[in-house]
């Protein structure tokens, strides 16, 4: 029976897939490409870091300059990510929940920092707060340092990570519509309760997703931060800048040791991101399989 079915079954499948040799060669080419462009660079970071053994790696990571770079990187991310989180939620609420003129233009402006070169992003803050800049004389008179100091680094980081969370949330909240929130308001909930108990649970996966990507970029930003930092060792060096300095001083093991921490961060980011995606997909599937309570109109 099966022997007679097989040829027709195979012919039916042949319409929507390729012959086995095509499939395997396409998979082969794609995996080879990914091996050379993604796996090898990642592996190279760790092997270069451990080139002179674990002891040298360990010594490189215990340098006080490396520690102050790690510290500054975390402080920067700790300020920039919450700021953009609040902005992302507010912008998504305004854009997704209401209709108003100029909405499309506003959405484009929110995306703008993504397409601005990081170097230009750094430059604009130098032009604002640098010695030659708009507020330069006033800041100097009051002895406040923004550019070539920590506040400038934070500002530049906020700029380059500006759209991450808003961008995740806007399409998500648009797709979910207003029905549940309106029901909550009609039932007497305050605006804050509605957000906290109705909207937030619905957007939590998108929120986590946005925060993770925002954090990865905040900790890894190089170009913009490099323009505003002034590269003062132990003071205004973030981890990526420290990597550059060590690399240019031919301290290859030390440079790759700090880089390996950033690569680990990237791997953790990818892992969390994948888990979030899988859990979100599972939840969507679970709700899709629920029996409908009422036939929709």
């Amino acid at each position, binding site marked *: 029976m099966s022997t007679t079915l097989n040829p027709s079954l195979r012919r039916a499948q042949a319409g929507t897939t390729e012959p086995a040799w095509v499939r395997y060669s396409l998979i082969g080419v794609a995996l080879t490409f*990914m091996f050379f462009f*993604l796996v090898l660079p990642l592996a190279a970071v760790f092997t270069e870091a451990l080139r002179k053994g674990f002891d040298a790696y360990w010594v490189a990571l215990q340098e006080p300059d490396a520690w102050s770079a790690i510290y500054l990187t975390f402080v920067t991310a700790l300020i920039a990510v919450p700021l953009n989180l609040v902005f992302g939620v507010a912008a998504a609420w305004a854009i997704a929940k209401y209709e108003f003129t100029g909405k499309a233009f506003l959405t484009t402006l929110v995306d703008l920092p993504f397409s*601005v070169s990081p170097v230009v992003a750094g430059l604009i803050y130098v032009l604002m707060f640098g010695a030659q800049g708009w507020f330069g004389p006033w800041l100097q008179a009051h002895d406040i340092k923004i550019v070539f100091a920590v506040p400038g680094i934070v500002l530049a980081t906020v*700029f380059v990570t500006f759209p991450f969370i808003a961008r995740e949330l806007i399409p998500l909240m648009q797709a979910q519509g207003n029905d549940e929130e309106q029901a909550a308001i009609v039932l007497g909930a305050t605006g804050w309760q509605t957000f906290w108990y109705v909207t937030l649970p619905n957007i939590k996966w998108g929120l986590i997703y946005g925060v993770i990507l925002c954090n990865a970029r905040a900790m890894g930003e190089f170009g913009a931060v490099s323009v505003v930092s002034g590269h003062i060792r132990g003071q205004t060096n973030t981890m990526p800048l420290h990597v550059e300095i060590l690399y240019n001083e031919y301290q290859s093991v030390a440079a790759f040791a700090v880089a390996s921490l950033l690569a680990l961060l990237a791997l953790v980011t990818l892992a969390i991101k994948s888990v979030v995606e899988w859990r979100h997909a599972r939840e969507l599937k679970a709700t899709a399989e629920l029996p409908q309570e009422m036939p929709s109109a």
Partner: protein
Amino acid sequence: MALFSLARSHKAARVLPGFNITLGFTLTYLSLIVLIPLSALVFKTFTLTWPQFWEAVTGPRVMASYKLTFGASLIAALVNVVFGLLVAWVLVRYNFFGKKVVDALVDLPFALPTAVAGISLTALLAGNGWVGQYLEPWGIQLAFNPNGVVIALIFIGLPFVVRTVQPVLEDAEKELEEAATCLGATRWQTFSRVIFPSIAPALLTGFAMAFARAIGEYGSVIFIAGNMPMVSEITPLIIIGKLEQYDYAGATAVAVVMLVISFVLLLVINALQAWQRRHTGAPA
């Protein structure tokens, strides 16, 4: 301001609270972080006369950097279109061992700091690197010249194409392909006449996003490029170079040119995405 007043006319119809406060906060924050600093860039260029501006943005070294930046970005984005489509296709259509890991790995260029990618690619492709040592005897040099720029930009741009094409391929209706086969199309005809037209808008969007990102890229490129003036110096590096010589006006002039280009590209990408949504029939 026009946004506010026009917004108010709709107010009566709103049930959900928080419109004024969220939109107000959004506009204030957007102005402080993005719009006012960007306008500083534009105002700074007004300190230059037109001939000065023209000289700053068309000097021979700057022109060479445009050629390199646009040429390398274009090649890298085209390579990414081909391989991005291939990776997306393989991930959506076929099953193989380790697929989930490969899928997660596609986002590595988004997550890996660009400086790390830069030094790592350089270490691989330098004459004594894992890959470079096999290429050197053949006279192929991929690091410290324009080839290196292209390679770094391929790395940076890959996820853009994969991640825009992948969902469209996932949503593609198998029935159409079955119909094509029933009507006697070969598999290649089905791909080129049925599947490809449906993913073309997404592919073009991915191309534009990878291209836009590549033009502004700095961190990964400067390590591998060698940064020789007139040969392997990208435009963002020209800005840094002018800044280091305290030529703020000159740096600003080149930055304005880049800003205008990225703004145009942003509008093009938005238009492409709108086209894509109409094409697939999804709600805007």
